């Protein structure tokens, strides 16, 4: 199945993007023949995550060697594990917040495929609002759209709806960042107070220890009848 490389990549990008303008967020990673390539992602709880991956050989002409993929939660629980596939999709909802790990490794006994000891894999994480299935929203809305609207205006309406939702999501993000910053500022102020308190206490400890020292030596010398 040898297609023009550019066309192939373009098709993949369009399939992944699914919008009027193929804005691609997929990262292409090289996976070595032996060992795993892992990427981390810091995600909150209760977020829908969709992970698309597809493996292509070095010449960009066809689907390449098969992969083993696994996705682990921050506490080590295996959320998705599959072996010996060339492409697929992992979808899950996160139950706790933390660093999630996605690891890709080449399936063993594929050595006859690899050219330069590595293959290229496209990895696309889509989370929260980006995982929203706009096609189904478009289909649903089409029934309710006014029949007097010409078709190309309808496409524009969907794009504007997307942008509106992105904008409100951005605003929610900013509030979240502000909360985190307030929490961190509180910790900083506490540390500042703690430093002052501990410095004072250190002065007190030094003073107390030297008083005990002098008292003990005085008692010792009196006992020895030297003083």
């Amino acid at each position, binding site marked *: 199945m040898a297609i023009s490389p550019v066309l192939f990549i373009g098709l993949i990008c369009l399939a992944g993007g699914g919008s009027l303008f193929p804005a*691609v967020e997929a990262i292409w990673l090289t996976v070595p023949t032996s060992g795993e390539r892992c990427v981390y992602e810091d995600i909150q709880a209760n977020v829908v995550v969709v992970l698309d991956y597809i493996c292509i050989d070095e010449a960009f002409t066809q689907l390449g060697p098969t992969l083993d993929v696994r996705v682990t939660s921050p506490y080590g629980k295996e959320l998705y594990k599959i072996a010996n596939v060339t492409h697929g999709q992992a979808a899950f909802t996160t139950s706790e917040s933390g660093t999630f790990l996605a690891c890709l490794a080449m399936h063993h006994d594929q050595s006859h495929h690899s050219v330069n000891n590595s293959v290229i894999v496209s990895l696309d994480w889509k989370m929260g609002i980006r995982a929203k299935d706009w096609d189904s929203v478009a289909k649903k809305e089409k029934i309710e759209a006014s029949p007097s609207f010409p078709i190309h205006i309808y496409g524009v309406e969907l794009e504007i709806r997307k942008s509106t939702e992105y904008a409100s999501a951005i605003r929610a993000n900013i509030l979240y960042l502000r909360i985190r910053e307030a929490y961190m500022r509180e910790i900083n102020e506490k540390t500042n107070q703690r430093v002052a308190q501990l410095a004072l206490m250190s002065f007190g400890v*030094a003073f107390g220890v030297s008083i005990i020292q002098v008292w003990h030596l005085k008692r010792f010398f009196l006992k020895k009848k030297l003083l």
Partner: protein
Amino acid sequence: MERRQAKIHVFVLIGLILLNSINQISSLSVTVNDEECVQEYVLYEGDTVSGNFVVVDHDIFWGSDHPGLDFTVTSPAGNIVQTLKGTSGDKFEFKAPRSGMYKFCFHNPYSTPETVSFYIHVGHIPNEHDLAKDEHLDPVNVKIAELREALESVVAEQKYLKARDTRHRHTNESTRKRVILYTVGEYIFLAAASGLQVLYIRKLFSKSVAYNRV
């Protein structure tokens, strides 16, 4: 003080309510041992590639500045489009001279593995050439694309801020731990030093060792 506490509690409450509805801010993180590369495909020539990366601190012991990583962007033709040396986090943006697979590489000159959290975005705005080619595209699509790109730039900035915030948080936690540990160690050392002093002086005055020396 009480009012500020209450305000912070209100913020936390709002945050917890909003947590279910937020757009996910996230940046991909990779651990760089020596050199790690990520590739991104640029479909059209003239696209703006923008992004940022932040090195999340591992425990730095003495120096106050992070040694930093080297960041290089290589075009599909093989020439280097952009280089940033010895930074611990930066934003970058460039116009792609041609379409193809661009390589973004992080190089770690030191032996300790570092974790980098990065975000790359390729943005395309259709121009008159695309409008002429495709009859389904309207001039209004250009405006929508510009709107989308503006929103994406805000999202990129947020991811950068969040990554820096995470790093800041690591530094804070490390500071807190250090303050407590070093102070308690200091107290113990002080008490031990004075105890040893007392013992030594007692030994000097004991009968078995040259009583008349002192």
